[in-house]
């Protein structure tokens, strides 16, 4: 059963179509990842799905409610973790939860009863009375996630939830997100960390220039869109080597500066050849989601 369905969604700003015909269906209990380079239209898509802005065309149904017409009703059962922390700096950790719960029409007693579990979930039980400026970046993110759960939502939207976190903090947040899917909550997250998408998401959509250009499980995307192995070759001689051997030994070849990425079905002949070029540094590995992403969205910078 879909908890979120969007069809032919479009949104245009000053002549530029930021969302250019997006179709999405997110099933109950899954973690769905929306991947894309900066400016791909991910955040605008989330804002459309939440009913914060009106689409120029297309239909949205969130938890059975038509959006944006009944977005308010839909948002009663939705939690949102925004890209930028917007906790209330004047409040303590628990006051942030209390005040946010009131926006959902919850009574103070009902919220107070939920706070200990939320603090435990966020690993902040010992910091209930701490003020926000005294928290680390990871703590703030975890509190923002806990705040998004104050109304016990069925669906949680997360916009780049781990951007700016160190690896420890990121892993802790991932554990939290896994606990949520284990509880049957549906997650919709945007990210440009492939590792995050690969670890957390059941299904992914890769978005670029306002369109969804590929969709499937992480494994399907890798199997469908890319050769199974990658040999990365670095060094001053990588370019000249590629001129001579590239087209014969690689099924597909990409160059970025002094690096050569050689995609193959079976690297035996290639590795044999590279043993004869000791000046080159070589890494041989299975293809991953990042390779798919770069193949589909290109290697040039997006700012």
């Amino acid at each position, binding site marked *: 059963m879909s908890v979120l369905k969007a069809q032919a969604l479009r949104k245009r700003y000053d002549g530029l179509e930021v969302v250019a015909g997006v179709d999405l269906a997110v099933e109950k209990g899954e973690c769905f990842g929306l991947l894309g380079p900066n400016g791909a239209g991910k955040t605008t898509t989330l804002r459309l799905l939440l009913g914060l802005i*009106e689409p120029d065309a297309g239909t949205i149904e969130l938890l059975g409610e038509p959006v944006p017409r009944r977005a308010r009703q839909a948002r009663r059962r939705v939690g949102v973790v925004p890209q930028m922390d917007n906790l209330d700096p004047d*409040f303590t950790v628990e006051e942030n939860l209390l005040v946010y719960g009131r*926006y959902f029409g919850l009574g103070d007693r009902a919220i107070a009863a939920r706070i200990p579990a939320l603090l435990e979930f966020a690993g902040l039980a010992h910091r209930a009375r701490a003020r926000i400026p005294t928290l680390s970046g990871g703590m703030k993110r975890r509190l923002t996630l806990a705040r998004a759960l104050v109304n016990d939502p069925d669906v949680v939207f997360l916009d780049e939830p781990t951007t700016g976190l160190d690896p420890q903090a990121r892993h802790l947040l991932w554990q939290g997100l896994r606990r949520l899917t284990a509880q049957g909550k549906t997650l919709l997250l945007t990210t440009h960390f492939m590792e995050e998408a690969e670890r957390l998401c059941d299904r992914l959509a890769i978005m670029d220039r306002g369109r969804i250009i590929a969709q499937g499980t992480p494994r399907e995307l890798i199997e469908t869109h890319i050769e199974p192995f990658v040999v990365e070759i670095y060094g001053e001689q990588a370019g000249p080597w590629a001129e001579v051997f590239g087209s014969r030994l690689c099924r597909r070849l990409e160059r970025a500066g002094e690096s050569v990425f050689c995609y193959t079905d079976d690297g035996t002949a290639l590795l044999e050849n590279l043993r004869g070029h000791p000046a080159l540094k070589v890494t041989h590995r299975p293809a991953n989601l990042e390779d798919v992403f770069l193949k589909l969205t290109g290697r040039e910078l997006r700012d």
Partner: protein
Amino acid sequence: MGHFGLPRLSLRFVPVWRRNFLVWRKLAIPSMLGNLADPMLYMLGLGFGLGALLPDVGGVPYLTFLAGGTVAYSTMNSATFETLYSGFSRMHVQKTWDAILNTPLTLDDVLLGEWLWATSKALLSGLAILAIVWVLGLEQSFTMSLWILPVVVLTGLCFAGMGLVMNAVSPNYDFFLYYFTLVITPMVLLCGVFYPVSQLPVALQAVSAFLPLTHAIELVRPLMLGRVPADVALHVGVLLAYGSVGFWLGLGLTRRRLLR
């Protein structure tokens, strides 16, 4: 593009108001001092200092004359500061409004909460000056002076509504200086806070008639002196018009700013 549709008002604004109240409660003492010290010092300093040099103004001692203007002026300042600086912090710097918009509340609820919150703070400022008036016994009739309270609320709504317009179009804090220099300060000088408007050249008196602070003072000052103000409907109408048009326009501009 539909941003300027009528406000959809409901009681859902209450949690927004309570959020601001909770912050205020934590910072109440410095916040009150900051809000009140300035108008209070002006009133007492000028009232006693300058007042000693002056004959009666408008038929009463200068301090009494000044008290009516100060109630209105302090109310205006408080509503203005709250919607400009504090409102801008919540909207633009802390992104508090964005956080609220992800809940079942809408921008209409947020702005109604902010409007009424700024009015509440304005009421507090007006009330504080009134308390000094009562302590010094400047009012002619205590019962009549109680009618100043609804006028203070109306004045708060008026200037909070206008402030929301400025907040909606401001790129940064510095921008508010224009509003103070071009709108608030001229109003303080042209609307009869420190001297009767009748002392001004006729052309400036005509300008004064269009400024909302004039109408607030035209209501407060007679009530302070125990009299029923003249043209009540006109003054109330002007304050209501500035306040409600301000709120509607501020909401529309804020929708255009945040919901795109």
